[in-house]
């Protein structure tokens, strides 16, 4: 992606129009223009363009603009503060176990799902069907809208109840400090204490710990360039756990950070990092700066080398399949009919570079399957189907009939297939109206999953006019035959208008860890994001939301990351 001489002169021409050339650059450009017709034409074109733009008609603002601003100011700033950031005393008197715990704001919120909702998932510990809840500050009494505990489960119960495991992340990222000196830090998930510095910079939007807890892969936003950057930091033994997972020998020093490349922002299909179960390989997807090529890359901590796995220009990283003695990787190719291929690296001395992933697939290509995400135990998969297209300068998304599906993942006679497929959403009809994309993550129990940031192209599929809703997190369970419905969306009131979900993790069958972003404030201060741990409860017991970084902390907190222990303790 180095700049050609021609690109260099185009940039000088562009900069010359706004007076941004140094004297030496001016001389260099003038000399070049004397001998280059193409660049003289570019200069004329850019200059015309600037004249056209400068000549655009000036439109008078509405006459009542000043009055509207004044009204907005007088309405007060408090409405813009989300309930979980308001002072704890605001909740005093609501009763029912309100407490500030360890400096964090602990807010009790109430279930307001329909009393007729059946339960989701199985077992006596399963949460109620509706995960929507309202802020305490706007709900009069804790018993008002609770779902009766007597509601009949509609799904086959899970075989064994999920053991109690701590839902707090092993670690989370914190991007804090003065505006001109923001620093990224890894913090302990339980105590919030700093663990170590991350050399990367920029607000983090995705993070995945290697299963052995030794490496952290993460994605940050690069200003407003429309691009993300992908990084890995060797966190050493700071997060070594009792799982006994093998360490990987690496030339990286502890807390050394490696920049792996960049990718276009705002596409959930690109913001996806996958570690193999032995922590030896991390698959990710990069795009070139013009968005022209999308390819799967691998990072090998043992050699500290990023490796471009595909060169087809339309390939995406899916997920790893547990296939002893080493994992195999699902890679998907975007297009009119997206197709997925399973790649194995067993026995290879070096990783291949594939112009066409089809040639190396160890299983029959799966047409109509895009970016399969396997549950941690490998038994289920969520993937996409539909017709994909790439907008010029944009990322791939579904153009027609796009939707996520849930299926069982089966190994049959040396081949893998997805069977008993059903739409992930149970209450939307996919035809001309469909999804463009959404972010999806599995829970550690291989039953719970979350979906957020759905981009729906059609009219609302619910009476309230807001389903599927880009702002909301949908929390479902594979064992729930209804799939995802409007009732599975977390209540809009939890995230005030303008707050946006950045990342979600599902540590247990009843917990969500959500990174939620304050609307771009526009001042020159630190961007704000909060890390919320949501505990769902059943019956008339209220849900609990905890702001992990504390109500008073200013900064960008999250995403959280977990090592493999939370998966291996699930049934």
């Amino acid at each position, binding site marked *: 992606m180095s700049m050609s001489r021609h*690109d260099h002169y*185009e*940039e000088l021409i*562009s*900069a010359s*129009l*706004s*007076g*941004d050339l140094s004297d030496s650059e001016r001389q260099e450009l003038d000399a070049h223009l004397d001998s280059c017709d193409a660049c003289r*034409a570019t200069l*004329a*074109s*850019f200059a*015309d*363009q*600037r004249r*056209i*733009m*400068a000549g*655009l*008609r*000036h*439109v*008078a*603002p*509405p006459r009542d*603009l*000043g009055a*509207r*601003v004044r009204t*907005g*100011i007088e309405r007060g*700033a408090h409405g*813009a503060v989300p309930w979980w950031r308001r002072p704890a005393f605001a909740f005093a008197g609501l009763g029912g176990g309100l407490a500030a715990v360890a400096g964090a704001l602990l807010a009790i919120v109430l279930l307001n799902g329909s009393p007729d909702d059946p339960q989701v998932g199985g077992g006596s510990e399963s949460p109620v069907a509706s995960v929507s809840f309202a802020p305490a500050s706007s709900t009069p009494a804790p018993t008002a809208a609770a779902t009766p505990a007597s509601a009949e489960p509609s799904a086959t119960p899970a075989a064994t109840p999920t053991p109690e495991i701590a839902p707090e992340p092993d670690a989370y990222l914190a991007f804090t400090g003065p505006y001109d000196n923001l620093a990224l830090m890894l913090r302990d998930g339980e105590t919030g204490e700093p663990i170590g510095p991350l050399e990367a910079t920029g607000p983090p939007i995705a993070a995945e710990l290697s299963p052995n807890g030794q490496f952290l892969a993460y994605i940050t936003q690069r*200003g*407003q*360039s429309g691009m993300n950057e992908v990084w890995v930091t060797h966190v050493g033994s700071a997060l070594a756990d009792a799982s006994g997972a093998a360490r990987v020998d690496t030339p990286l020093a502890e807390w050394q950070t490696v920049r792996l490349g960049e990718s276009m922002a705002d596409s959930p299909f690109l913001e996806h990092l996958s570690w193999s179960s032995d922590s030896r390989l991390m698959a990710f997807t990069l795009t070139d700066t*013009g968005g022209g090529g999308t390819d799967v890359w691998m990072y090998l901590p043992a050699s500290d080398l990023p490796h471009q796995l595909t060169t087809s220009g339309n390939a995406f990283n899916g997920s790893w399949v547990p296939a002893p003695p080493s994992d195999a990787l699902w890679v998907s190719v975007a297009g009119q009919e997206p197709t997925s291929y399973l790649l194995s690296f067993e026995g290879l001395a070096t990783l291949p570079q594939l112009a066409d992933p089809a040639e190396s697939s160890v299983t029959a290509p799966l047409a109509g399957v895009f970016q399969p995400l396997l549950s941690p135990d490998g038994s289920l998969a969520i993937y996409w189907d539909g017709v994909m297209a790439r*907008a*010029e*300068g*944009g990322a791939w*998304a579904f153009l027609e009939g796009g939707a996520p599906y849930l299926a069982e993942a089966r190994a049959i006679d040396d081949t893998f297939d997805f069977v008993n497929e059903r739409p992930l959403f149970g209450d939307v009809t996919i035809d001309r109206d469909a999804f*463009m994309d959404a972010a999806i993550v599995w829970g550690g129990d291989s039953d719970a999953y979350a979906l957020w*940031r*759905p*981009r*729906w*192209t059609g009219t609302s599929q619910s009476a309230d006019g807001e389903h599927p*809703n*880009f702002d909301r997190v949908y929390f479902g369970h594979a064992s729930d035959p209804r799939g995802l419905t409007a009732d599975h969306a977390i209540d809009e009131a939890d995230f005030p208008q*303008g707050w*946006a979900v950045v990342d979600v993790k599902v540590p247990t069958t009843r917990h969500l860890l959500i990174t939620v972003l304050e*609307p*771009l*404030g*526009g*001042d*020159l*201060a630190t961007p704000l994001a909060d890390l919320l741990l949501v505990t769902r409860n059943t019956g008339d017991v209220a849900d609990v939301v905890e702001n992990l970084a504390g109500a008073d902390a200013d900064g960008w907190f999250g995403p959280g990351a977990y090592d493999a222990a939370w998966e291996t303790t699930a049934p």
Partner: protein
Amino acid sequence: MVVPGATRWVEPVVTNRAADREAEFARIFEEYSSPIYNYVLRMVSDPDRAADVTQDTFIKAYRKLDTLTDAGSTRSWLYRIATNTAIDDMRRRRMVSAVPDDSPVFTNRADDRPGPEAQAMASTLDERVQRALMTLRPNHRQCLLLSDLEDMSAQHIGEVMGLSYAAVRTLLCRARGEMRKALAAEGFAR
């Protein structure tokens, strides 16, 4: 020890702080409301949305006025708020409809425009340029508007967009290249 004049000085400063703040905000609104509205209008291509975004921009600016310590940064600061608020708005709109930001029709408001014939010519030209602008990626559009409509230097654009000087020059060059193609598609020569 008695410090002559101390009381006389302290009280007026405290008393006038709120009034100073109001006066400062009134001055900022007077100077920038129209340019900000036009910038946002070109960003979102819808007069009602532009009015909403401009309104939110100034409400945020009022609330954050205390963080503006250097009056020389007012313009960059305000455009940054407007840019971020417009991005928020576009981000939210995208979730309602998958149709990208190229569909809204750029309509004209009644104001002190010239006669009907010139008006038709002007609006046609305007609409074509606006259509071309809306085919650009939002960050390309921002960058181009800040440079060519607002006449900002690369350094000021960097302050608004949170990018380095070098990154702005590269981004701006790409934006001009894209705009060149988009204008050609609208029938502009060269």
